[in-house]
């Protein structure tokens, strides 16, 4: 029995004990054993599960950030770079792309990502960092014009 209508929902907040419990048991429907159907046991594990999901909302952001860093680093490795170096250059040159977009480019638009990597190399060469040669081919900097 699931709360499907506004009438049932209103009743679940009121004095009707059966429907009040249905609201909790609906959340424990996918649990294993007595946690699924016995209210006394279910209420405890539902509270526990809800508190986990509250914490997970913050953890998810952290986990995604770690994953994006891994992916962008993998994309940078192909061009002999790493994200720490690319980050600084993108910030300097005013390329306002965040990690989510950058990892998306690395997967779906490898040539756009390559352009950003080449930009990083060119900018570093211009500043005299991490390069014995000049800027890589195919990049025009302001100094050349």
């Amino acid at each position, binding site marked *: 029995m699931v709360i499907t209508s506004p009438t049932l929902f209103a009743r679940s907040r009121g004095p009707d004990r059966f429907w009040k419990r249905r609201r909790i048991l609906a959340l424990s429907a996918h649990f294993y054993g007595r946690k699924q159907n016995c209210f006394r046991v279910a209420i405890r594990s539902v509270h526990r599960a809800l508190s986990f999901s509250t914490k997970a909302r913050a953890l998810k952001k952290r986990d995604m950030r770690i*994953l994006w860093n*891994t992916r962008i680093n*993998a*994309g940078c*490795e192909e061009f002999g770079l790493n994200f720490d170096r690319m980050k600084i250059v993108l910030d300097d040159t005013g390329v306002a792309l965040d990690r989510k977009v950058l990892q998306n480019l*690395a*997967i779906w638009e*490898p040539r756009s990502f390559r352009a950003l990597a080449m930009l990083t190399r060119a900018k570093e060469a211009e500043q005299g960092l991490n390069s014995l040669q000049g800027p890589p081919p195919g990049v025009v900097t302001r100094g050349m014009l």
Partner: protein
Amino acid sequence: MSAIRRVQQWATFGRMWYLYDAKWQNPFDSADKIKEYISGTHKPIYHPLNDCGDHVVVINSRHIALPGMEWERRVYFHHTGYPGGASWTLAWELHRKDPTLVVRKAVYSKLDKNLLRRGKMARLHIFADDEVPNSILENLSGQIRQLRAVPKRLDHYTDEEIKSFPRIFDWPKDYVIPN
């Protein structure tokens, strides 16, 4: 899905086989590098649940170079589970027993400690020397760069190369070079 897209997908998700020459390389630093390839973190499509790791074939594991005093100081611990069943093996003893084990254990301990670890280790193929069976050799499609170039020894240069090497100064004619 068009034919081009289908081939693109095969190329993206296909497993590569990489060769790594462990000659004169630090196995513990190499393990950091190899770990990325067998767990797939070297690809932008990486996801922890996405089984996208590649195979790595390590050759010349007999000729690894441990840093500092590690051959004598590094100790591998094993316990049989019975009382008095503990044993401590030095790195040089382990290497004498099986020349692939130091590399294998280095990679194994660098990997994440979860249920995927054994599956990832199955993608690592270590050979003591440079002889690799043909069944593995024909899969190879890439190479991992060595961490450090193997230096050439003085006795491997020809006499002409040594003589033509530029010198800062000449020895006096009556100077005796001690051997």
